[in-house]
């Protein structure tokens, strides 16, 4: 059984899941609402893992702050969802979200303008993470900051954002963030229909992102990135502007992460500054490491398997999860340096 077959099979199973959700609850093939929404969430995680793998697995940029790009994308869509609540909020204010009324805002802050439009919010879900990656990446790569120093900077970036978003006067709902969303694109969110649409949107984005990343990885750019990962100064010596190449992949990766976050938030129904927590970003890197970095498929596999394990373990023994995660990382590093995906190629040879 080749890897391609397994992937195609998995994709097929995912594609029919929302349909099986419509079967009567007593049917053997019925898929529960819970399974649909949790799988939809994992798909967005898989997109985040792809984004991380493109930057880390190919260009060697180990970002420990990719959760920030994901969360910013989520906040952008969250702002749109908040604007759509309108008079259905507790205070019934036609333009101001509840938390703003509560905090005594008289009018919408300027940076909230435009978020009543879905295309604008979607654009911002890509543009804001992309721009942040451009600025942080430019400063870091131009100064030739690599390796662990870059990881620390990205970690500091997401931590700083977390602290900032916790503040009420930032205008993003403080530690409560955004929730109580009602609708998106005319669909009432808490319906099987909306769940299916968001699930399929995530699945389509995953497939598109996968092919996009594969296209980059298989182009000469992908080989330049691998060369940068292994011997950066030699690439420079060959006449390549390493900063440009790294910026390209870092920004692309951030945009993908932002889009993943934009699909995550309407599915889980809440976004708050806790999502910026450095632990989240590290966990996402572990998905990639477990699946096998520099393979793209491995990143997707890792995101699904680690999260499935997490869901199961946090139900049966919640206290054990962090130990299991740490242990998993150590075990994979020691025994499966090429990740789960390495098992496939081992079986082949």
């Amino acid at each position: 059984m080749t890897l391609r077959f397994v992937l195609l099979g998995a994709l097929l199973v995912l594609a029919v899941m929302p349909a099986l959700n419509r079967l009567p609850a007593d049917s053997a093939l019925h898929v529960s609402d819970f399974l649909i929404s949790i799988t939809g969430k994992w798909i967005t995680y898989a997109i985040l893992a792809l984004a991380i793998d493109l930057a880390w697995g190919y260009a060697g940029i180990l970002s420990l702050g990719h959760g920030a790009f994901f969360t910013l994308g989520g906040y952008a869509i969250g702002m749109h969802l908040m604007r759509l609540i309108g008079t259905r909020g507790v205070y019934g204010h036609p333009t101001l979200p509840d938390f703003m009324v509560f905090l005594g805002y008289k009018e919408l802050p300027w940076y909230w303008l435009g978020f009543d439009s879905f295309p604008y919010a979607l654009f911002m879900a890509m543009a804001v993470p992309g721009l942040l990656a451009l600025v942080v990446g430019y400063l870091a790569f131009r100064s030739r900051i690599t390796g662990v120093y870059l990881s620390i900077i990205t970690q500091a970036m997401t931590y700083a954002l977390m602290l900032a978003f916790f503040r009420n006067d930032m205008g993003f709902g403080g530690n409560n963030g955004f929730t109580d969303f009602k609708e998106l694109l005319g669909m009432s969110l808490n319906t099987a229909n909306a769940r299916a649409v968001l699930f399929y949107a995530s699945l389509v984005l995953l497939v598109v992102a996968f092919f996009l990343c594969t296209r980059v990885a298989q182009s000469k750019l992908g080989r330049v990135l691998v060369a940068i990962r292994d011997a950066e100064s030699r690439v420079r010596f060959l006449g390549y502007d390493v900063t440009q190449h790294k910026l390209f992949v870092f920004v692309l990766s951030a945009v993908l992460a932002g889009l993943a976050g934009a699909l995550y938030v309407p599915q889980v129904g809440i976004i708050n500054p806790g999502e910026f927590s450095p632990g989240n970003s590290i966990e996402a890197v572990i998905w990639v490491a477990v699946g096998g970095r520099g393979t793209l498929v491995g990143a997707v596999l890792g995101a699904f398997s680690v999260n499935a394990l997490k869901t199961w373990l946090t139900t049966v023994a919640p206290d054990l999860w962090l130990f299991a995660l740490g242990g998993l990382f150590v075990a994979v590093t020691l025994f499966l340096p090429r990740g789960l995906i390495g098992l496939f190629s081992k079986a082949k040879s």
Partner: protein
Amino acid sequence: MSGGSGNPVLYLDGVSVVFDGFKALNNLSLFVEPGELRAIIGPNGAGKTTMMDVITGKTRPTEGTVRFHQHDLTKLDEATIANLGIGRKFQKPTMFDALTVFENLELALKAPRGPFACLRWILTGEARRKIEGVMEEVGLGARAHDRAGVLSHGQRQWLEIGMLLMQDPELLLVDEPVAGMTDQETEHTAALLVRIAGARSVVVVEHDLEFVRALGSKVTVLCEGTMLSEGSIDHVQSDPRVIEVYLGR
């Protein structure tokens, strides 16, 4: 045979380099003709590496003239000199181990270097022929799709020379190419350097005399930063000053 005739590719005249009062190069003059293969030998500390550094712009001479065609190399930086067509192979080969021989050469090929250009890059027949030509030239044709990481020490040196050839240098500087090589690899390398000279000039720094003999080229002997003797290998080996430096005290 003797320097100074015609239009040398590389022209060093009265070059001195002083580090804290120590004369690494002392009034050194050297001419390399188009297509010439030249071996530079000399004991440790003779100034061989300093001479390479001066040519590639890494070290500035205290006095003297260094010219590549009409370009004054003492006023140019390393990248500009490299782009003028002077390629330098360092002692320690560095390449991209995760990429194949073919891919390593492809990255070295002259082509637009930006990320978008690389993303759109399509390997044309012309580029493929050029890469295959260089692979044949350095004797790695059969290893095209092997990762550089699995090559032997000698093959890595040849790949590195191949990567330099991809950039069409007019002058190739090769620093101790056969250090650590087996006898067979050394022989192969000598044949390789003889083969690639002609289309471009090649300057080889080495202290393995058997290897230099195999090159069959004109030899320059450096000692204490200055030229001690120049001519065929038999000529310099019978030169009493060379014998004294190498054997006696």
